[in-house]
């Protein structure tokens, strides 16, 4: 059975790797686009000075990348120098300067440098002196970090209040909005954890519940277009990586002797060990890797598609304003459709991540008789 599961897993992994490659290529394409336009912009500045940003062409790739990437300030509206943003704290650690903290508004949207640091086109902090090779450890409270805090505080507020509510109604069912949360908890316990993990379910429930609600909450926050949401947190590879590493560590800490035997002493002829053991070992690392990629790719793809539909309006608008107006209803309709789909995806990806985590934990803790 485990073999079947791992077979299915490897097929899924393959699909994901393809997806991942597609996104990588897309990213590369966007970046080259950005580089190309930056040169263009420099030329513009040389030619027409102050007016440059008004004549700037709309670049969908750049706009989309700016929206899905992390940033040192939280963009609200406006363009370039006139844009309204929420400045966020920048925390930098370097060998030579130690800990440096300041507010991101000092960068003036990337147009100024502060204490020897400046922002590049991608919004990453670099040395003002570009020849300086020293590493910068950027521990800033960036847009994604703030979004993470907001999402997590919201989640804890709801869930801890729910626990209190339960405490007040011993032996009774919950009231009001908690009615919506309890089925999710029961669903995770009865349909995800119990079939996969079996007898040891209770031990892993807090982790699985936290993973599920964490991903679900932040997925939903990512769908809100303005301030308290909108950051692409669960579509950020660092976030999904930490989640995957936590699952990886949990699985391998709790792996019993059957789990390790399956990897290092499988029930196959000894001469096949040379093939099987590397494959099994690869599987151990591939599973969390795939978890990381799946969440990242799905959420990022959703954001890219929605932003892409919006870009259509401005692409056509740049050709002829009338065309932009004509396309807009279609774009809005598609965006609404995609947003609804993304609501489903928000749940689905949280569910899939939790389900696979539960299956991996179940595989590692399963007792063979």
């Amino acid at each position, binding site marked *: 059975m485990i073999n079947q599961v791992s077979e299915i897993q490897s097929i899924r992994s393959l699909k994901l790797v393809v997806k991942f490659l597609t996104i990588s290529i897309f*990213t590369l394409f966007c970046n080259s686009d950005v580089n190309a336009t930056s040169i263009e912009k420099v030329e513009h500045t040389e030619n027409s000075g102050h007016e440059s940003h008004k004549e700037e062409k709309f670049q969908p790739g750049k706009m989309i990348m700016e929206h899905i990437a992390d940033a040192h300030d939280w963009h609200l509206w406006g363009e370039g120098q006139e844009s309204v943003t929420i400045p966020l704290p920048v925390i930098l650690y370097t060998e030579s300067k130690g800990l440096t903290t300041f507010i991101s508004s000092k960068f003036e949207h990337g147009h100024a440098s502060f204490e020897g640091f400046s922002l590049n086109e991608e919004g990453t902090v670099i040395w003002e002196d570009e020849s300086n090779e020293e590493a910068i450890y950027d521990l800033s409270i960036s847009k994604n970090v703030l979004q993470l805090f907001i999402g997590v505080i919201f989640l804890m507020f709801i869930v801890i209040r729910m626990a209190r509510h339960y405490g007040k109604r011993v032996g009774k069912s919950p009231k009001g909005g908690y009615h919506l949360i309890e089925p999710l908890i029961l669903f995770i316990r009865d349909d995800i954890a119990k079939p996969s993990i079996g007898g040891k379910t209770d031990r892993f429930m807090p982790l699985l519940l936290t993973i599920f609600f964490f991903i679900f909450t932040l997925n939903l926050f990512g769908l809100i277009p303005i301030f308290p949401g909108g950051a692409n947190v669960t579509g950020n590879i660092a976030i999904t990586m930490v989640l995957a590493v936590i699952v990886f560590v949990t699985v391998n800490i709790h792996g019993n002797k059957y789990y390790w035997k399956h990897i290092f002493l499988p029930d196959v002829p000894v001469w096949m060990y040379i093939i099987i053991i590397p494959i099994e070992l690869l599987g151990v690392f591939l599973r969390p890797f795939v978890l990381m990629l799946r969440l990242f790719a799905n959420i990022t793809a959703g954001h890219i598609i929605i932003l892409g539909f919006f870009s259509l309006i401005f692409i056509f608008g740049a050709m002829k304003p009338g065309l932009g107006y004509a396309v807009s209803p279609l774009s809005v309709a598609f965006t609404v459709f995609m947003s609804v789909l993304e609501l489903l995806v928000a749940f689905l990806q949280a569910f899939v991540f939790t389900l696979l985590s539960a299956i991996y934990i179940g595989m590692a803790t399963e007792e063979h008789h």
Partner: protein
Amino acid sequence: MQLVTPAIGLLFWMLLTFSIVLFILKKFAWKPILTHIKDREETISNALSQAEKAREDMARLHGENEQLLADARKERDAMLKEAREMKEKIIGEAKGAADEEAKKLITRAQDEINKQKLAAMDELKKEVAGFSVQIAEKLLAQNLENNDAQKKLIEHQLNELTQKAQA
């Protein structure tokens, strides 16, 4: 490639935040909620099994009542039957006793009749013997008056009697 390169700051904050969230939620939310849900489920299943038990008890009681009723009916029938038997027996006994008595009376009556008959026959015999003796006396008296030979017979007879008495 910024998109697929994990940023160190985000890794750090995420790890820190997630660990804290996991700890806090585990302690203050998931454990109480899961315990509560489990308790409630137990309460519900207990209540269900108790209801089931009560239902069974009811069915059992109902059955017992039926049984009692049936027993009572049977007992009543038995009593009626017994009474009927008793009646017949009493009547039978009474009849038997009467028969016996009648038979006894009849036998006694027959005995009495027999006794009376015997007594009557005795009487009759005595009467007949008396008459015979009287007749024989008369006849003998007539014969003894004139015959010596008859005297001799009588004497002979007397001798014999005396010899018998001497022997």
